[in-house]
């Protein structure tokens, strides 16, 4: 029974909303179902309620009746939850741009860094990587393999070593060797761990001391299959190290990543890229319109 209902949800996500919105009478049950579909996309109950409320308001105020109108209104409402045109620090010219990549364990930081390195290299940046995950077994080797594949140098220390020191060394190396973009891979950590968040702050301070206004971007990598905890992650990492953007990974799965609406709405953080696979090319710049469309398509 449960399986059937899931199957139905999967198959006709947008179709069902379309049918619902096309119904002549928008009764309470219809609204409940819209809310349900949003919840199943991981928007979270609060955001889902906010979206349906706003949509209801528009339907009332503007007297929307056709399916097309309602569908557009829903999409616009969702789009309005995402922050608009937040400028990227990458647009400003400088000698060395430093980007810190952070997130919980296993979210996809290291792989994403490799993808970013690949992408930025092709855009003409001279990219270097810093292996500041000195904690997890074989994390350094993992980044080194990726560095080789992406054709960019990796500055690494010893396992168990000081992550701040690695960051510092990497910044010096980047300067000395004339690299203009440094991506810092950090160890995965749960946002609730005090010590580890302090360590991250330290890495940030090291960067700030060595390069003017560094880190210029701090990107939080969030696993796209994560539920409501993603908001807690974003909130804590933002508070601790001033996250400036989000990258959502594993969206090649059937997960819809709806938690970015809560993150965007509550914290004003823009999504920068989406991870859609495990090879170097599997990174897409975030396109809000396409993302909203994808929430419902099957």
């Amino acid at each position, binding site marked *: 029974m449960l399986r059937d209902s899931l199957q139905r949800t999967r198959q006709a996500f947008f179709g069902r909303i379309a049918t619902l919105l096309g119904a002549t009478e928008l009764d309470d049950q219809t609204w409940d179902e819209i809310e349900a579909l949003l919840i199943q996309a991981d928007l979270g109950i609060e955001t889902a309620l906010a979206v349906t409320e706003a949509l209801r308001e528009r339907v009332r105020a503007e007297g929307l009746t056709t399916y097309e109108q309602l569908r557009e209104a829903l999409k616009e409402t969702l789009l309005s939850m995402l922050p608009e045109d937040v400028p990227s620090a990458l647009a400003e010219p400088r000698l060395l741009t430093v980007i810190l990549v952070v997130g919980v364990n296993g979210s996809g930081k290291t792989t994403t860094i490799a993808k970013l390195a690949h992408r930025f290299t092709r855009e003409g940046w001279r990219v270097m990587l810093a292996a500041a995950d000195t904690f997890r077994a074989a994390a350094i080797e993992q980044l080194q393999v990726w560095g080789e594949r992406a054709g960019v140098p990796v500055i690494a220390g010893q396992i168990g070593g000081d992550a701040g020191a690695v960051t510092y060394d990497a910044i010096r190396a980047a300067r000395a060797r004339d690299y203009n973009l440094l991506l810092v891979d950090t160890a995965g950590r749960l946002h609730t761990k005090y010590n580890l968040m302090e360590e991250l702050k330290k890495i940030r301070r090291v960067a700030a001391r060595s390069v003017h206004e560094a880190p210029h971007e701090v990107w939080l990598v969030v696993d796209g299959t994560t539920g*409501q*905890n993603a908001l*807690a992650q974003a909130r804590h990492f933002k508070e601790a190290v001033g996250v400036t953007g989000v990258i959502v990974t594993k969206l090649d799965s*059937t997960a819809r990543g709806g*938690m970015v609406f809560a993150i965007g709405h509550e914290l004003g953080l823009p999504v920068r890229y989406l991870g859609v696979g495990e090879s170097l090319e599997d990174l897409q710049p975030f396109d809000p319109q396409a993302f909203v469309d994808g929430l419902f398509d099957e």
Partner: protein
Amino acid sequence: MPMFEGLSSRLDGIFKELRKRGKLNESDVDAALREIRLALLEADVHYSVVKSFVARVRERAIGAEVARSLTPGQQVVKIVYEELINTLGEPGRLDLSGDPPHVIMLVGLQGSGKTTTAAKLALHLRRQNHRPLMIAADTYRPAAIEQLQALGRQLDIPVYSEGADVAPPLIAGRGVRAAGQENASVVIIDTAGRLQIDDEMMAELAAIRDRVHPQETLLVADSMTGQEAVNIAQGFSDQVGITGLILTKVDGDARGGAAISMREVTGVPIKFLGTGEKIDGLEVFHPDRLARRILGMGDVLTLIERAEAIEMDEAEALALEEKFRTASFTLEDYRKMLQQVKRMGPLSQVLELVPGAGEIMKQISPEDIDRQLKRVEAIINSMTLAERERPRILNASRRKRIAAGSGTSVQEVNQLLKQFRYTQRMMEKLSRQKPPANLRGLFR
């Protein structure tokens, strides 16, 4: 997000209205269930699972007699809680019957924690006198093999690998054979993370399965997973067949509703919880604890159970309380209390069980506290009883002696004394406060 502060506090309002009546009627129950539904959705339980769960509770609750000792609201919570425990099921034991070597295969999505869990499980089994061997069958993720090997070295547990250029089913097959020769009693196979919709990769898992016939195939899943949990569990269950679940990263603050979703779609038991990056961070699953967590009730009961296990003498407790109130609490009392607390387990873990302690944890480091407490104890132990009772007599030379005796510095001794005075004041303040309302309601 005050809206989702925890079910118990939200239900409070409803309870108030329910308080008088004798039997649970439909409208009472529905009012309470609306809140339950929200709480479960907020905890990431899948929408459809919430629906069927709430329907089950409704059926049981309507017309139920309210026990004399409970308010109607508490009666509803009790039913919800019991039903949740039912749904989560009994803690699953590993099936290690029959002839060794017993083969355990770990499967799951990318980044769910399989490799770390393999090592934790190996350690857990060795502590039960098994002889584990791990097989590195993740040939995809860069340095995954090295990671398992490093963990194996750290634990002194053998790791079988053939590098990254051999097909995983072949590695697994030969690894299991090698295990027989090496006299290993359990084999744990670490497989690459994969999406359940990746047909090719799922077929590979089936091929490994058909080659080594694992006794246990455990789905390792991230406790932070959202609505996708049902698809994941369903996919692995259908295509590979699983015998149990391991929920990881439970040491974070995710409510863990995914566990219910996965249990419900697969019907297999939850066997372990991963509770930290350290290699011994693996716990046997307790349905009651997880149920409380999903409901947002904290793990208060566990704390109470632990506190009971200490069997603190009631009279002693009262005396202590009295001392707090009158601020006549001495360093000797402090030392006794530290010992009590220590018996409850590392403070870092104890704190995690206290609802609302999350706030405190953000500001201070629990691991630091544990370390700090050890030093504090050493310092107090180096004092004479008179000094403990009357810290005022601690002049410079006494402080120097204590520092030397405890292997600390005079600075640290001073720091402790300062802190102690502060604690005294805090205790005084705390004792004037009432316990939080929702807790009082729950444990009357």
